[in-house]
């Protein structure tokens, strides 16, 4: 397990790999941002790079709950979709400026996460997963019915952001490179926030709950409140990913709220590595790249992705990045 050990003293005879690992942990945010900076030049298309950014943020946020607190939620698409829809509606129907719309989207997602979290954290184990699935599906059907606001299953349209005003600079947002780096700022902020959370006493608390809930309670942690807070924070970051998606596509598909999207988020997180900081990002990258490339080769790419996922659950539960970290960077 990757327990962040910022303040832990290293053994006097620490081998180089251990120091490397500690260094990677300390500098994980700048290293991640560096990786993100060069990402668009490595991938076949900028649109794919932006998608990786978006889903990377969503998965890192989701992992706060899944990998670090140990709660398998099958309904995080609700927050992703909520963030996207609120941003889109704010820009499209109320003419709000884009950064305010982002703020509204994130806040809306946080509120929804608080409500759903409040209801679901009262259950445990498999029932928790079922509740999150059911509540998220409820949000899906409500959005489907409220078609005057959301466009129903036609999706939300009519809020294209062509140019944005960033600190006095007029940027052409349609240009893929510009769009990527603007959205990267959000991604960097999200990564920084998650890292801070994980480094804090709260971060230690959620990991304690994952390890042994009863013992954490005996140690005096308010387990219910901690879980709720973790849920809300995780949902908020997913909502941020949603707002990024809305800005990117200028379109919010109804599928953003469906449990299959939730399932995809889980798959990406697991694929990359649920017990590491940057793992979910790698998972999103690999998943989206596989999907992009495989669907060029065959229309049956789903069987490949499904099989790979099954193999990972069986043999590489730590995911790509998690396995890499634990084997190589010892």
């Amino acid at each position, binding site marked *: 397990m990757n327990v962040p050990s910022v303040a832990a003293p290293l053994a006097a005879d620490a081998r180089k790999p251990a120091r490397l690992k500690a260094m990677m942990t300390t500098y994980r945010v700048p290293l991640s941002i560096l990786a993100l900076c060069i990402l668009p030049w490595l991938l076949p298309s900028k649109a794919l790079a932006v998608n990786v950014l978006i889903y990377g943020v969503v998965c890192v946020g989701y992992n706060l709950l899944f990998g670090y607190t140990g709660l398998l939620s099958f309904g995080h698409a609700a927050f992703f979709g909520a963030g996207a829809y609120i941003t889109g509606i704010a820009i499209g129907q109320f003419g709000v400026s884009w950064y305010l719309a982002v703020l509204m989207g994130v806040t809306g997602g946080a509120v929804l996460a608080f409500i759903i979290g409040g209801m679901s954290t009262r259950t445990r*184990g498999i*029932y928790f997963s*079922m509740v999150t*699935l*059911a509540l998220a599906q409820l949000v899906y*059907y409500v959005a489907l019915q409220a078609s005057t606001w959301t466009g129903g299953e036609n999706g939300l349209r009519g809020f294209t952001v062509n140019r944005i005003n960033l600190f006095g600079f007029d940027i052409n947002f349609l240009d893929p490179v510009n769009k990527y780096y603007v959205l990267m700022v959000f991604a960097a902020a999200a990564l920084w926030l998650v890292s801070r959370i994980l480094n804090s006493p709260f971060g230690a608390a959620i990991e304690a709950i994952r390890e042994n809930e009863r013992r954490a309670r005996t140690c005096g942690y308010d387990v219910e409140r901690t879980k709720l807070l973790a849920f809300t924070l995780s949902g908020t970051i997913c909502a941020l990913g949603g707002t990024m998606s809305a800005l990117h596509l200028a379109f919010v598909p109804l599928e953003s709220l469906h449990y299959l999207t939730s399932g995809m988020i889980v798959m990406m997180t697991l694929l990359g590595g649920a017990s590491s900081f940057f793992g979910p990002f790698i998972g999103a990258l690999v998943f989206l790249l596989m999907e992009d490339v495989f669907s060029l080769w065959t229309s049956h790419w789903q069987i490949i992705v499904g099989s790979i*996922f099954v193999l990972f659950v069986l043999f590489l*539960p730590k995911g790509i990045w998690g396995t890499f970290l634990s084997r190589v960077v010892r």
Partner: protein
Amino acid sequence: MDTELILMQLFSGVALGAILVITALGLSIIFGMMGVVNFAHGALFMVGAYAGLWVASLTGSFWWGLLVAPIMIGVFGMLIEFVLIRRLYGRSIDDPLLLTFGLSYVLVEGVRIVFGSDGIPFPTPSLLTGVVDLGVGFFPIYRIFVVALVFAIVVLLWLGLEKTKFGLIVRAGSRDPMMMRVLGVDISKVWLAVFGLGVGLAALGGVLAGPMRSVNPEMGALVLAEAFVVTVIGGLGSLVGAIIAGLLVGVVISMTALFAPEMATIVMFALMAIVLLIRPQGLFGKLA
């Protein structure tokens, strides 16, 4: 709204519930006895429908399909348990859920590769075509058959679990697997059989549903959601719960269809959420 219509609607609800019951039974048995949430249950339902169609087209008879397909897919289910799920025991309880989730993608796409993406017709057996006048309205004979068959299966299942030695082992094993091992029972064989049984029930549901809806690779997705709703409301692991909840959900959907048909799916999920929040173990289940 006249009483005839309401009675007809109730009857439709019961008939609708029959398919829900048989699929939910399989899901509930697997969770109750093994603690595994089988996310591939809907996909296996669909595979069952295709298997039934295939056998029926080979032998020219629906009845052979009905008999052979569930057994075939049940064995396939045992293979899945043996090769894949067995490796996950001792690990996090979420792992089988995740594995079966991935497996459902593989199964659906596999069927698409072998049979194509188009819907395939599943002709109703000639013995059961036509409608019968129930006095309050006309009802397809085939659906009445489905209700009767599901009822018979439920009775058989109950007899099997209550009256046979194997049933005793299964029931005991669900309560305390460790104790079973201590007593010398090979629990892994029991789980193999239970998983096969659960999957076989799903496949049977698929074969029964085939003539009512066209057979296509996506038919399992909605069924999975419905099966989850029913199992949760009835209680994960409770057979009685699955039966009562299945009929209840069928009737609720049917009555909603009378007044606000577009709300039918929302009502289903809302009910599931409410039950989970107020009484997470469902109507008849026991808290894990």
